[in-house]
Each structure stands twice: as structure tokens, then as C-alpha cells.
């Protein structure tokens, strides 16, 4: 119909606007009764034609009677015979007749009466004394009894609620026009549904049905619910759905008619109580755990409780409570006694660490990370344990007797000497044990870090700091680390694959990273490296270079310049040597001379013959035999021919020589001794010098220690060392010594050992100082002293550098800057810096300004 009609209402382009809201209702009713519509029997017809007529009152009563009957039927679940349309129309008419407020009030009154007549008696029956007792004192009845009473009450209340809820939904549906035409226009009235549903709160929950205790139904309800929840916590099975229905009910009701979401009864009444109850429950439980259990049980228990509460929020109460109740557990079960549990003897964190309880610690980490981002407690214990274990390693190394342990492995080159094992080798073994143990500890904690602590950065930083702490607490760490590398490069990496070598290097670098006094390490490394290089003890120059380049990455170029210089020297030396040999062979001579030309600054002072005691004969002295002097002169000439301004100094201590010796046949002896024997002996350079002395002497002529020293001018220490090699060491005893003891003392006499014999033709005399060993305390003191001197220079340089750019600076600021500049090398003590500043003032690099207002000021003197 009407599709050809041109008078379309405009503005109907959207469905929502098709029918405007019923604002001008007043004019509508009369038009509603068009002639066509009036053909039908219309209830409205008469009343609308006379809106305020006398019939209005009776019409209202007719409609209300209809509705009242319907409400009753709805409550009695007997509404299938009712016509929705008829009821709706009744309400519609009442509203159109402006009697909406009457209807609203009557419905309210009807519902209240319904409550008092039909519902409250039912509930009253449920509120028994035993039920009320649950809320006051839950020790009276047995658990089972309590559960049954509680469930009965909850069920009753739930059923009442569900009936009411459904009835009110239906009521609201048929009274929909009341809302639209009346309640919506009156801001003081809630919608009919809100109003009627809230009646449940006012008439049931807030009513006091037990005159003796004066408790309201709501209080009883909540305590019964909490009682049930506590039963479940204790391990009983409860009707979760029932509890949930009750929380749903409380979520549907509000504190007042504003229906503010934040003021749901669930939140304002139940949740508050629930959280308080949980707090009390878990506080008690935690106390009990603390008294009766160990940390492992606590961890698992807490984890289980957390999961339970999450589960409870999903199934039994509302999920919005979950973060809050988790917070309660975190407070009560974790935070409050975390320290106590961590410190538990025989099960605490210390025990877990020692026994590698990966699972326990993973749980612990998860729990602790819930309550504290920084993990302070966990971190502190771990740090303390690392330092403890580190110090234990140190103590263990000190207390271990290495004379046995090292006998088989330690320095095979020393042969029998190792069996009596000198203190030096023991020290080396101790150093290696220390480093190995530290690395093992590091591996252990790395493993824990990945397996338990989810690679947490904070933990990592803390662990690194602790390692660094205890390593630096140990005064010999720099030396031990260098020795460890030394040992590996000398023999440790033999026969290993590239990857394995790489792992060793990585470990070495890790340790170096921890060291604070890097200048000390530098000194030791330089010394050890020099020995390795000059005595050809290094297993692989490639690996040496690798480790240096790694150090360069870690510590910077400055750190490795000297090491690189050492390698450079060796390369140029090899070129020089072959150049010199070529020259000589051109001249028709064949000279077997290997030279190492070393740059003074790059090599450790000991090697360079500059002993620590500066000033006292700073060069290695030696009177060389004529033959050797000639050779030296010839090389010097060759070297200086294309280099200007260089000075060569000969250092006998680090060289060696091959000597062909002939031992005469000894008459009257059997076997080898009866023949003439030729051997080729490799001895230290000084050994050669000494042996050559005996060339010109009769077999049975003796030289005393002092005579040898006078002839050669070799320093006492070096001489003792050399004589040990050729007069004591059993395999290369080409000199006889009197008295035949094992140590060389001034006053001893020496003679040619004509009866020397050896199974091999080539013999190598041991180089007594070639073993990189731990220093004895005296040497160590010297090294430290030396290092302190170096540091003084470095600090001086840093101060001057800073002052030069800043011109004027306050004392404290200067100290801070110096420390920050030097942090990569070592950690200077403030007192030393102060002393250096004083010194620089004396030397007039700095001055204190005259002005009064700046007492702590320094100024750079240009």
C-alpha cells in the first residue's frame, strides 16, 4: 500500500529516525482513533475522547486490577495464560492518562506486601540458631553440619532471589511503557526494574530476621559464604555454583538507587569481608608454615594457594576480585616472612643454591618477582652466598696441600724436581685451582640464572657485582688469572679443538672483566707473556694473538699496546736474524745466532734486566768471553748500520746456547764411561759463559762461587740460578759441586764433571726461572710497590690532564673525575689521589688560589 504515494516523510534515511520519539504525546491520542481504527473495539476510544472525564478513576482501577492479578500470577509462575499485549496495553493506558506515578507506587506497594507475606516467612525459617552461630563462632558445630546448614540457607536465598529476579524482569517487560512514558521523565525515580529489584535488598538482605543476635540477613549470608570458602581452603568439597549464584546476586544489587558500578553490594559488602577473611586465613597459615615446615614446602604451598585463589575467582566468586586476593596472598604468604623463609637453615635459599634446587628457585623467583620488581631480598641472599662461596674457594686454596696434587701434572719439564715440588709449582697449582673453582662457581650461577631466574637483568647485575667483589677481595686474583691463562697457553690448549680453545679464552676474558686492578693484571700478564715468548713456551701464537685482541675489545687499545709491541718485536727480530745470517753467509761465515731485539717499554722490567730496585746497576751485567764479544760486536754493527740513534743492551738472562761438549773416556771404567762422549747441551746464556771458563782449566781444578762471579760479573741471583741448572739438575750436571747439596750457596766449589753421561745426545738444561710461578711474598711486595709507583704516575697524568682542560676545580670534583678516568684500569684510593695532588702542588703543576672563598680549590699552573 501507498508505494506510489509521493509524500514520503523526509529524513527517514536512517532506521533510527524513522519514528521520532513520542514527545508530543498529548496530541496523539485523539488522532489515534481514526475512523478506520474506530471500527474495532478499542478500549482507548472512550477514555481518550474525554481524557479527564469521570470514567478515568474506574478505568484506572480496571487496568490496575488486571495488572495486579498478573503480578501475582507472575510470582506464582503462572503467567502462560496471560497476554503480554493486554497487560502492556493496560500499563500503556494508565501512563497515557497521566496516572503513571500511581501505577509506580502501587507496584512498589504490591511487591513489598508480597515480600512480607510470602517470602520473608520462608527465609525466616532458614535463619536458624545454628546458622546464626556459624557467623559468630564456627567451632560450635561440626564441619559437615555447618556445611549442610549453610548450603540450605544459601540455596533458599538463591531460589528466592532467582524467582524475584525473573519475576521482576517480566514485570518490567510488561511495564515497559511506564519507564518510557513516566520514570524516564522523572529523574527522582529509578526505572521500574531497578526499583523492584532493589526491593530484594531492602526487604530481605537488609532486614533483621534474627532478633536474638540482631544480625541482618546480609551479614549472615556473607559469613556463611566465607565459611564455605574456608571449608574449601581446608580441603572440603563445596558447591561452588551455589556460592557463585550468591555472588552474582550481590553483583546485581547496588548500595543505593544510583546503581553506581563501583558500589555493587558484591564490592561494598562481600569483597571487603572476603579479603579480610583471606588475609586472616593466610596470615595464620604462614605462621604455621614458618613454625612447622621448610622453605621448599612453603614455596610449593604458596604457589598452590595462588593458583587456587585464581581458580576460585574464576569459578566460585567474581573474577574482578582476583588481583586483589592475589595481592593478599602476596602480602601474607610472601612479603611478610620472605626473609625468614629465605634464611631457613637447611632449606632456605642458601641450601637451594648449594644443592642446585632449580625447581624451588624457579618458583621462588616467580613468587618474589610478584612482590618486588627489584627482588631485593632474593638478590641480597644470592649476593651474600656468592661472596661466601668465593671466599670459601680462597680459603680452600690456602688450606690445600698441593705437593701431592700437583706431582703428576705440574710442569713435566722439571721432571724429578716436580716430585719434591718446590713451593713455586705448588703456588701455580693453587692459582689454577682457584681459577678453576671460580669458573665453576660462575658456571653454576650462570646455570641458575638461566634455569631459575628467567635471565633477569637485575639478578645478573647483582651476581656480576658479587663475583667482582669477592674476586677483588682476594689480593692475588690478578696474578692468578694471568697464571691461569699462562698455564693454558703453555699446555692447556694442546690438542684441543678451536671451539674448546675459544671456550677457554672466553672464560679467561670473563675473569679479566671482573678484575678491578687491571693495571696489576697487565703487569703480571706482561711478565708471563714475556716468559712464554722468549722461552718459546707458548703453544700457539695464534691463540696468543686472539686473546690479546679480545682483551683489546674489552679493555681498550691502551691496555694491549705493550702486548702487541712484544709480538711486533718478535717478528722484527726474526727478520733481523735472518738478515744477519744472510749477511754473514755472504761474508762466508756461518753463524748460528738468534736475536730478539726488544723494545724496552713493551717488555716487563725484569726481563729487560731493570730490576725493581731502580738505580742499582740497572742493566744485566756480564763479562762475555772473547768469542761471544766478537759476535756481539758484529751484530751490533749490522743492526746499527741501517738504524740511527739506537742503543743495544745485551741481556744474558733470557737467552740460551747450544754447546757441543766432549767428555773424555775415563780409564778403568766400564760401559759408556770408557768411551769418549759427545753431547749437545742447551744451556742458558750465562751457563755457556760459565762453562766456557772451564775450557781452559785442568779437569780437577776447582773454582769457587766467588771466583766465577769475579770472572763473569754475573749478579749473585742469576749466578745461583745458572749454576743450579748446570751443577745441580740431575740430567745436565756437567759441573761437579762441593759440597754436593741441592742448593747453591756462596762459597761452594765447582769443577768439570768428567764422568758426565747421558742417554740422549741432546740435553736441555732446565731454565730455572722459566716456570711462571706465583711470587713469593717478597717478590709480591716488590711487584706491588712497583705497581704503586706506576699508579702514582698514572694518577699524576690524570690529574694534570683534567686540570689542564678545567683550569680550576674543587677538590672533591677533581677526585671524582680522576676516579672516573681511571676506572678502567684500577680503583685509586682517595688518600693516594690526595697525596698526588699535594705532590703536584709542590712540583708547581697546581696551586691553591689565594682567595679566601674557595678553600678547596685548585688551579692549573700553565
Amino acid at each position: 500500500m501507498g508505494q506510489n504515494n509521493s509524500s514520503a516523510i523526509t529524513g527517514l534515511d536512517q532506521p533510527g529516525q524513522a519514528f521520532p520519539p513520542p514527545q508530543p504525546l498529548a496530541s496523539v491520542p485523539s488522532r489515534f482513533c481514526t475512523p478506520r481504527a474506530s471500527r474495532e473495539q478499542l478500549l482507548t476510544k472512550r477514555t481518550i475522547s474525554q481524557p479527564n472525564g469521570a470514567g478515568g478513576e474506574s478505568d484506572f482501577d480496571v487496568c490496575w486490577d488486571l495488572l495486579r492479578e498478573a503480578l501475582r500470577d507472575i510470582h506464582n509462575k503462572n503467567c502462560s495464560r496471560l497476554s503480554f499485549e493486554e497487560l502492556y496495553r493496560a500499563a500503556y493506558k494508565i501512563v497515557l492518562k497521566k496516572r503513571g506515578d500511581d501505577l509506580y507506587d502501587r507496584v512498589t506497594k504490591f511487591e513489598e506486601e508480597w515480600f512480607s507475606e510470602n517470602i520473608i516467612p520462608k527465609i525466616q525459617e532458614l535463619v536458624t540458631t545454628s546458622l546464626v552461630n556459624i557467623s559468630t563462632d564456627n567451632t560450635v558445630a561440626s564441619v559437615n553440619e555447618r556445611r549442610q546448614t549453610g548450603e540450605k540457607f544459601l540455596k533458599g536465598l538463591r531460589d528466592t532471589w532467582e524467582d524475584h529476579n525473573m519475576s521482576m524482569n517480566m514485570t518490567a517487560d510488561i511495564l515497559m511503557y511506564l519507564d518510557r512514558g513516566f520514570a524516564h521523565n522523572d529523574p527522582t525515580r529509578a526505572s521500574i526494574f531497578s526499583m523492584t529489584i532493589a526491593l530484594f535488598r531492602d526487604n530481605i538482605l537488609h532486614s533483621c530476621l534474627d532478633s536474638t543476635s540482631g544480625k541482618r540477613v546480609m551479614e549472615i549470608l556473607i559469613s556463611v559464604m566465607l565459611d564455605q570458602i574456608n571449608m574449601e581452603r581446608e580441603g572440603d568439597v563445596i558447591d561452588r555454583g551455589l556460592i557463585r549464584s550468591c555472588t552474582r546476586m550481590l553483583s546485581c544489587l547496588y548500595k543505593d538507587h544510583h546503581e553506581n558500578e563501583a558500589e555493587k553490594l558484591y564490592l561494598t559488602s562481600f569483597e571487603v569481608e572476603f579479603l579480610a577473611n583471606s588475609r586472616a586465613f593466610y596470615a595464620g597459615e604462614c605462621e604455621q608454615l614458618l613454625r612447622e615446615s621448610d622453605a621448599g614446602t612453603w614455596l610449593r604451598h604458596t604457589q598452590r594457594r595462588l593458583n587456587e585463589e585464581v581458580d576460585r575467582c574464576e569459578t566460585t566468586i567474581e573474577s574482578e576480585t582476583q588481583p586483589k586476593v592475589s595481592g593478599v596472598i602476596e602480602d601474607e604468604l610472601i612479603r611478610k616472612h620472605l626473609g625468614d623463609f629465605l634464611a631457613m637453615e637447611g632449606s632456605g635459599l642458601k641450601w637451594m643454591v648449594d644443592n642446585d634446587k632449580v625447581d624451588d628457585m624457579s618458583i621462588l623467583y616467580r613468587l618474589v618477582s610478584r612482590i618486588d620488581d627489584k627482588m631485593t631480598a632474593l638478590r641480597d641472599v644470592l649476593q651474600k652466598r656468592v661472596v661466601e662461596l668465593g671466599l670459601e674457594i680462597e680459603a680452600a686454596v690456602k688450606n690445600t696441600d698441593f705437593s701431592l696434587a700437583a706431582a703428576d701434572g705440574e710442569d713435566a719439564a722439571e721432571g724429578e724436581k716436580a716430585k719434591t715440588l718446590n713451593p713455586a709449582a705448588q703456588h701455580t697449582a693453587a692459582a689454577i685451582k682457584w681459577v678453576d673453582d671460580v669458573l665453576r662457581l660462575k658456571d653454576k650461577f650462570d646455570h641458575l640464572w638461566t634455569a631459575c631466574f628467567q635471565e633477569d637483568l637485575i639478578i645478573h647485575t647483582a651476581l656480576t657485582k658479587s663475583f667482582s667483589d669477592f674476586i677483588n677481595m682476594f689480593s692475588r686474583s690478578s696474578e692468578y688469572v694471568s697464571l691461569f691463562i699462562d698455564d693454558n697457553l703453555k699446555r692447556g690448549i694442546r690438542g684441543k679443538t678451536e671451539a674448546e680453545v675459544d671456550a677457554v679464552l672466553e672464560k679467561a676474558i670473563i675473569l679479566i672483566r671482573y678484575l678491578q686492578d687491571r693495571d696489576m693484571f697487565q703487569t703480571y700478564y706482561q711478565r708471563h707473556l714475556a716468559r712464554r715468548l722468549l722461552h718459546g713456551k707458548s703453544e700457539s701464537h695464534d691463540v696468543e694473538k686472539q686473546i690479546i685482541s679480545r682483551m683489546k675489545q674489552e679493555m681498550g687499545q691502551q691496555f694491549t699496546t705493550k702486548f702487541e709491541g712484544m709480538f711486533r718485536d718478535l717478528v722484527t727480530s726474526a727478520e733481523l736474524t735472518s738478515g744477519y745470517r744472510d749477511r754473514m753467509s755472504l761474508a762466508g761465515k756461518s753463524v748460528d745466532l738468534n736475536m730478539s731485539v726488544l723494545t724496552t717499554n713493551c717488555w716487563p722490567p725484569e726481563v729487560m734486566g731493570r730490576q725493581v730496585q731502580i738505580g742499582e746497576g740497572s742493566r744485566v751485567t756480564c763479562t762475555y768471553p772473547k768469542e761471544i764479544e766478537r759476535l756481539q760486536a758484529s751484530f751490533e754493527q749490522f743492526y746499527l748500520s741501517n738504524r740511527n740513534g739506537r742503543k743495544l743492551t745485551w741481556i744474558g738472562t733470557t737467552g740460551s746456547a747450544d754447546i757441543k761438549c766432549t767428555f773424555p773416556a775415563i780409564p778403568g771404567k766400564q760401559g759408556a764411561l770408557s768411551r769418549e762422549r759427545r753431547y749437545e747441551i742447551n744451556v742458558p746464556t750465562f751457563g755457556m759463559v760459565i762453562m766456557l771458563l772451564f775450557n781452559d782449566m785442568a779437569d780437577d781444578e776447582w773454582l769457587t762461587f766467588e771466583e766465577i762471579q769475579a770472572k763473569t760479573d754475573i749478579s749473585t741471583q742469576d749466578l745461583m740460578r745458572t749454576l743450579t741448572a748446570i751443577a745441580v739438575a740431575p740430567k745436565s750436571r756437567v759441573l761437579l759441586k762441593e759440597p754436593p747439596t741441592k742448593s747453591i750457596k756462596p762459597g761452594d766449589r765447582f769443577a768439570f764433571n768428567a764422568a758426565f753421561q747421558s742417554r740422549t745426545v741432546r740435553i736441555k738444561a732446565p731454565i730455572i726461572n722459566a716456570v711462571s710461578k706465583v711470587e713469593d711474598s717478597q717478590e709480591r711486595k716488590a711487584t706491588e710497590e712497583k705497581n704503586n709507583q706506576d699508579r702514582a704516575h698514572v694518577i699524576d697524568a690524570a690529574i694534570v690532564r683534567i686540570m689542564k682542560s678545567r683550569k680550576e676545580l674543587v677538590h672533591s670534583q677533581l677526585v671524582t673525575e680522576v676516579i672516573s678516568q681511571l676506572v678502567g684500569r684500577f680503583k685509586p684510593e682517595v688518600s693516594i689521589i690526595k697525596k698526588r695532588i699535594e705532590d703536584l702542588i709542590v712540583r708547581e703543576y697546581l696551586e691553591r688560589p689565594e682567595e679566601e672563598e674557595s678553600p678547596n680549590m685548585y688551579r692549573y699552573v700553565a
Partner: protein
Amino acid sequence: MDVQAPSKYVTLISSDGFEFVVLREAAMVSPIVKGMLDPKSQFAEAKHARCVFQEISSIVLDKIVEYFHYWYRYRNSEDVPDMDIPVEICLELLAAADYLGLDHVNLNSK
């Protein structure tokens, strides 16, 4: 009718006895019709998926049903064509729309 599976169509009957079979989903645009015919509702209409509008003539109800389908068809589209409304039934239609709750409040909350 079976409450578990509501029928796809419902029947609306005008005061003069005309029956309109309408897509249930389309008719549900009216909260009143929804209240009557929703399977959860326990009133007589819901049982038979039929409701009689004793005060709406077939002419008006026809237009209303047309609107139900019009709304249903264009409920998710933009650029909706106008619907023709014959002038002579405008007021009746307006009153019926009010009766059926087809105003801003309800439609916007859809």
C-alpha cells in the same frame, strides 16, 4: 512451540484479523514485540509465537512490518534509501511506533 529452538518467523495479527508472518529477528527491533515473543518470556504470546495487536489496524501494521524488514535489511548499511510513508496514516503510524517502543532510546541501544 518449542522453547529451545525459537521459530524463525513470528506471526503478528492486526486488530482487523490480518496475519503478518515476519522474520523473528526483524520483529525483535521492537522491545515490546521482543518482550512478548522472546522464548524466555513466559507469556501466552511467546508460546505460540503469535501476537494480536488489538489496537493496530492492518493498514498500519502492514507499514510497521514493512519497517521491520526495512530496518532489518539496512541495519548494518550506510546510505539507506528513504521509506515511503503515506501521509494519511502518518499519525496512526506515529502512535503505533510509540506503542511499540520504536523510538531513539530503544533503537540506538540496539
